[in-house]
């Protein structure tokens, strides 16, 4: 017997955002586990399905409680981080090819300037965290200089931003 429709029906009772985040993955994982367990025999398959459906039923109130007691911004952390995800409409091959050579087209000078900006920023944050305010002022000034240098380099190479 195919229990995927039952599983899908139970999933429909979960909060909508939870389903948006995980439904497709959960159905995929359940389907693959079902295939595997079916090969192990009827008893193993029955045990597996019972465990899965019971686990899902027990998760249901937990997820609703979490939904009602967690702020929207915290729950949104379950969404994929768009900075590391492939944008819609971009082909997989292109996206991963560019990821393998992320700065191939970027001059070394600009890459170094960007690293220097990050360095100044980190040191400024560390200085603030340790209440070293003269140090924080120093790295704040260095940060401004580094950003200005980066801006000029970008103009020099005709890069926007």
């Amino acid at each position, binding site marked *: 017997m195919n229990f995927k429709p039952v599983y899908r029906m139970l999933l429909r009772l979960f909060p909508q955002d939870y389903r948006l985040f995980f439904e497709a*993955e959960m159905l995929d994982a359940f389907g693959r586990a079902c295939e595997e367990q079916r090969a192990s025999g009827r008893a193993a398959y029955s045990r597996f399905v019972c465990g899965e459906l019971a686990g899902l*039923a*027990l998760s249901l109130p937990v997820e609703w409680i979490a939904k009602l007691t967690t702020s929207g911004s915290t729950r949104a*952390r379950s969404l994929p981080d768009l900075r590391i995800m492939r944008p819609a409409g971009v082909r997989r091959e292109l996206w991963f090819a560019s990821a393998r050579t992320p700065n191939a087209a970027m001059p070394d000078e600009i890459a170094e300037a960007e690293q220097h900006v990050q360095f100044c920023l980190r040191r400024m944050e560390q200085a603030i965290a340790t209440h070293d305010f003269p140090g924080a002022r120093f790295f704040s000034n260095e940060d401004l200089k580094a950003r200005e240098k980066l801006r000029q380099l970008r103009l020099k190479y005709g890069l926007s931003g």
Partner: protein
Amino acid sequence: MVRHVEERHEADGKPLSEPVLLILASLAAGPRHGYALMKDIEAISNGRVRMSTGTLYGALRRLLEEQWIERFEQEDTSREKQAYRLTAEGRRQLEFEVERMKQLTRAASARLRTREA
């Protein structure tokens, strides 16, 4: 064994729950998607823990909210699939927990030796 976890884990210094610890341990070796996580957890617990999808994704949701793990798209899969990986904070929490467990084990072993002597 199917486990269901209700307790809120950490961030406040409490021990990690077993599913959370197993997920972090599995991801410490490399990124994985949901089904691969289920299989790996079963393997690293010597078949003792078989996490249901409800438990697994509930724990993954909490870990994403804590920002101990993050989602990304895996390149080397034929199917369209997102995978999970540890963040620096997740790795730090796992290291902290492993250290805590080592300390407990040392203390318990010392007590056992005292008793035997």
